[in-house]
Each structure stands twice: as structure tokens, then as C-alpha cells.
């Protein structure tokens, strides 16, 4: 499998995602075993991006379901198109159609609004990538329902009957761990835990995503972010933040970090007011000096 893992890593790198072996292995196994992949990790470590890259690699559609508390079947799976149904019923008032036939007509596929889950299952052109984002935000009732869909890849609509998947989609679930995911759902998936990247990986990511950033700038950003994460902030910045910051600095024509610009752009990275307050000027100066390699990190 090693060779395939390498190939996949390279392919992902071409799409701008620097993946280590664990990520590539997990993605390969998801395809081979036909099981959903559950990715857990802090916000901003690149969980959602994995699904996007997967869709680009497989040259297929990415269907995304964003979870929130109270998410229900009519937003996740399907809904009937009431205005159209109503119109149809009204238009045929003059014709003497009996109730049974009318019901059949009105509850047909063409009156069905497909929501993400149903669309992922019924896609004809080949398997889609289904991203179920932030599953920890949905409640347990939805989790139980999802379990049913993900085990059989079929859904039952009372008016229509059972719809089976044309192609089993690649499913990626992400969670920020704000809530423990139920054991049943966890067991149904393969598992990947994403951590903040190492310095070397972070520099590669910044370089690949922000081509305008010089080697030196990327390295300094990497060091700065690593030092920030080691400080136990209330909200640790992820790779998403380092990319944003690199973009901002490139836009400001910076090729290295300096105290003033860092203070002005710190909002790209530190997004909590208590954290901002804790980082006073001397602290920042020290972090910048360390990042520039002028002072050895403690």
C-alpha cells in the first residue's frame, strides 16, 4: 500500500494539500473498504479541506451538509415542493381525477426537492463526495438518523418507497469535538485525528497555498504560529489562520515579520480578546524576534 499512499500524497500536493501518510492512508482505506471517514480535530487544521481535495481528485461533485442543532430530515434529506404540488392540484380541479391518482401524480419524483443526503445517494454520474460538516453540532436524533442512511445507503420516503444509492458516495464526516460523537456512529466509520501540523509541514503548506510568500516569510510565520500554539491560548490558531496571515502579509509586500506589521495584522491569527490582551508589546516583540531567529527560542 506504501506506493499507493505515496501516489495519493503527491496527487494531493498537486491540488495544494500537503498530506502526511496517516491522512493518505485513511483516504485510501475509505475508498477500499467503502466506509465513511470521521475526521476529528481542532478548528482550522484542515478537516473540511480534505473532502474538497478528495472531490477534486476523484473529479466529482462535492455535496456538503452543514450540521447545526435542530437539523432535521426536511433540510438534510428531502422536502416536497408544496407550491408546485398545490398548483398541480388546483389546475386539475376541473378534470375528474380521483384522489388516488392525484396523490400519485403529486407525490412523484418531480415534486421532490432533493436535499444534500438524498442528492448524494441519487447522483447518477458516479459516486459523489458527501461532506457532513461539524457533525458534533447536530443533535443525537439526527445522528441516529444518519446512522441508518450511512449503513445501507438507502432512504425510505413514505410516499415514494425506498430509494437505493446508485453509487455509494465517499463520505467524510468532520467534528470539532465540542460534543462526544455517539459510539454507534463512530464504529460505523474509519477514524482520523488531525493535529496541528509540525513546523516543517506548516511551512510547506504556507508555501504551497500562498505562492507569493518567500521562503523566509513562510518559515517565520511557521515559527510564530508554533510558538503561539505552545502558549495555550483560549483559541489556538489553525493552519487556516497561518494561510490567511501569509496572504495578508504578502498583500502588504512583507518578506519578513516585523513588530509593527505583526501588531497591525495580529487579528488574522489571534481571534480572542483575552488572548489579544495577554499578548502585550514586549511579549509580541519577543515572539517576533524568536520567529526571525534572532533570539533562540526558550
Amino acid at each position: 500500500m506504501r506506493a499507493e499512499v505515496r501516489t495519493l500524497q503527491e496527487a494531493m500536493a498537486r491540488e495544494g494539500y500537503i498530506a502526511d501518510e496517516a491522512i493518505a492512508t485513511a483516504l485510501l482505506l475509505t475508498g477500499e473498504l467503502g466506509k465513511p471517514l470521521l475526521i476529528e480535530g481542532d478548528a482550522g487544521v484542515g478537516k473540511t479541506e480534505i473532502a474538497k481535495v478528495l472531490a477534486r481528485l476523484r473529479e466529482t461533485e462535492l455535496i456538503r451538509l452543514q450540521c447545526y442543532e435542530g437539523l432535521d430530515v426536511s433540510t438534510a434529506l428531502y422536502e416536497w415542493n408544496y407550491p408546485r404540488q398545490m398548483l398541480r392540484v388546483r389546475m386539475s380541479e376541473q378534470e375528474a381525477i380521483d384522489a388516488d391518482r392525484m396523490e400519485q401524480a403529486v407525490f412523484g419524483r418531480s415534486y421532490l426537492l432533493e436535499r444534500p443526503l438524498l442528492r448524494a445517494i441519487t447522483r447518477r454520474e458516479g459516486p459523489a463526495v458527501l461532506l457532513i460538516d461539524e457533525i458534533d453540532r447536530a443533535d443525537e436524533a439526527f445522528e441516529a438518523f444518519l446512522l441508518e442512511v450511512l449503513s445501507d445507503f438507502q432512504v425510505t420516503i413514505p410516499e415514494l418507497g425506498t430509494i437505493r444509492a446508485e453509487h455509494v458516495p465517499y463520505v467524510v464526516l468532520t467534528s470539532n469535538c465540542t460534543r462526544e460523537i455517539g459510539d454507534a456512529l463512530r464504529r460505523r466509520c474509519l477514524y482520523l485525528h488531525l493535529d496541528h501540523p509540525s513546523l516543517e509541514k506548516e511551512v510547506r503548506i504556507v508555501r504551497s497555498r500562498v505562492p507569493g510568500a518567500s521562503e523566509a516569510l513562510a518559515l517565520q510565520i511557521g515559527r510564530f504560529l508554533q510558538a503561539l500554539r505552545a502558549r495555550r491560548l483560549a483559541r489556538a490558531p489553525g493552519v487556516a489562520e497561518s494561510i490567511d496571515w501569509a496572504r495578508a502579509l504578502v498583500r502588504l509586500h512583507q518578506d519578513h515579520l516585523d513588530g509593527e506589521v505583526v501588531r497591525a495584522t495580529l487579528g488574522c491569527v489571534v481571534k480572542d480578546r483575552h488572548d489579544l490582551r495577554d499578548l502585550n508589546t514586549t511579549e509580541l516583540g519577543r515572539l517576533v524576534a524568536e520567529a526571525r531567529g534572532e533570539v533562540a527560542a526558550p
Partner: protein
Amino acid sequence: MSADLVCHLARFAGSLRAAGVRVTVGDEVDALRAVTLADLGDPEDVRLALRCTLKIRPRDAEAFEDLFARHWLQAGRADPLRPPRAEHGPGNPRSSGLVPASPRPVEVEVELPRGDEPGWSRDAILRKKPFEECDDRELARLEQLLARLAERLATRRSRRFVPVRGRGRPDLRRSLRRAVATSGELLSLAHRQRPIETSRLVLVCDTSGSMDPHARFLLAFARALKRVARRTEVFTFNTELVRITSWLSGGQQRSAMEQLAAAVPDWSGGTRIGECLEAFAVRHLEELVDSRTVVLVLSDGLDRGEPERLAAAMQRIQARARRILWLNPLLGDPRYQPTARGMAAALPFVDALLPVHNLESLERLLPRLAP
């Protein structure tokens, strides 16, 4: 696939289970399929495949890496290549004792000196009087007030809609289905509404000597809550955890207290908070606590056990519960600082630390019990 491989994997899964990592047969099947795809000559390949399919979480990473090194690197091959590194996941949080403080800031509510409220009634004074200073007659009156208070227990509207008769929002889906029978004439609208959810509460009360003056009253509070939120579960602990839910429903307060004194070992003895909460986490957590449950721990945090065990147990409970509130009678004293070892260990995993020393503090607690 060879029978050898199957046996080896089963043994590996067995030792993982023995180390406390939850591995099901389904996981083993996944792992087996993945391992047959992997290159058995390449330990790194096997390791990554196993980690992914056995669903190894960061907290189990250390145990996994240990056992992997023993089972797959030394057993099978002569050359244990490089030792596996933990590329993913931080070090096992359990090993470091007190894990980093949870990002959620803990609220500590302390009684603020305020002017007396206008008007006077005997009840108004009683509301502010510390429990331990009340005489028997006052206590009986307090219990009555408490019962009325609990009826105001906070509830919230569910975010989900359910069909209802009569008032509510129009439910188009059902209305239209009905209309089909009358050839499209909407004779009546179906409605749906958000139901009211009541709290699920789990109370874990300390009954050790240092809590003695408060115990009677807190149990009365538990009874009052139980009447309103039926699914309330009550436990007591000092050196051992006892489930007393069934004694609280019906009957007299006194008989509950007597039963308690008879059944709870060492009533008013020393406390082992960590061990008792751990026992709660092992035996009852999955059954009684879910993401809608508010867990209340009533204790002064004066623990004679190991703070690490308390912290680990609190972390497990916090991961599952909607909210975990620590009610501490000592907080009524403005000079009190939560520095007792047990209290300090538990604090990072508590959503709010609140005083319970008089009726007024219980009153202020009610909104926080919303599901």
C-alpha cells in the same frame, strides 16, 4: 488471508481491550480488511492502517503505540525497524495528570453584598438565612418554599418541530397531504410546534462530615427537583457511591433520611470524591447522562483521595454532559477561595461553580438547569 494473521490481530485487539481501549468485533473486521491491503513487510503501513480502522483516539494513542510495538514489531519480524513515532495526536492526556485547562472559562459566582430588597416578609429573611443557622421550624418552612421554587425550573423549547393539534405553525407537508383527499381544497390546516423540553438532571451529593449541616436541605432540594423533572437521578457519596433515586419519590422526607443513614456507609465520614465520581462515570455515565443532561455535583471539594482521579472522572463526565455545575456551600463565604486540592483539580472541567448555602442561592441556580 492467513489464519495466522487473523489470530494475531485478535490477540492484538484483545490486549488493546485489556488496556482499556474500546475495540469491537466490527473494528477488528475493518482492521483485518485494511491489513490485507497493507504491505505486511512495512510496519509503518500496518500501523497507520490499524490506527485508522481501529478508531484510535488521541487519548488511547499511547496505549496503542505501546502494544503495537510489542505485537507487530517484535513478534513478527526480526528487525524491529524504527520505533513508531506518535506523529498524530498529542501525548496521552491521561499521563500528564492534570490536562491543560479546558478552553471554556469557568464562572465562579460569589455572593455579592447587595442592599436589602424593599418590603419585608418572614420569607424574605428566611431566603437569605444560611441553612446551618435555621432551626427545625424554619427548616420545615424552607422546605415548603423550596417545593414552590422548583416548579419554576427552567425549560426550553426544543429546536425540533412535532405535529400538534390546534395552535402552532402551519405544517404544509401534512396540510397538503390532507388536502389531497378533498381534491386540493385546504379545509383545515395542520400545525406543528416546538415542544417544551424539561431538564434531565443528575445530582451527585456529598454527605461527608464537612457537608453535614447542608445535607438535609440539599436532599430536600433534590426531592423538589425530582417532582418537577421526573428524570432526575440522585446519588450520594462519601466513601462509596449510592444511588438513592428510588427513596426520594413519595414518602416522607424523614424516612428518606433514615433510609439513607442506614444504607450509606459511613454517613458523615471522610470523602473520596475522585473514586466516587469515577465509580459514577464507569457504572452510570452512559446510561444516565447524555448531551441534554445537566450534572450537579454538590460538595465542598474537601477530598481525601487523589486529585488526578477526580480530574480524570470530571473530564469524562464533562465530555458527555450538557453542562456540569459544581455547587459548593463554602462559596457563600466571600473569603473562600477554591483552593482545596480536590476543588482545584475539578475546576477546569466545571462549567460553573456556584454557591448553595441559602434558599436564594438555589433560586439563582434554577435558570442554569435548563436542558
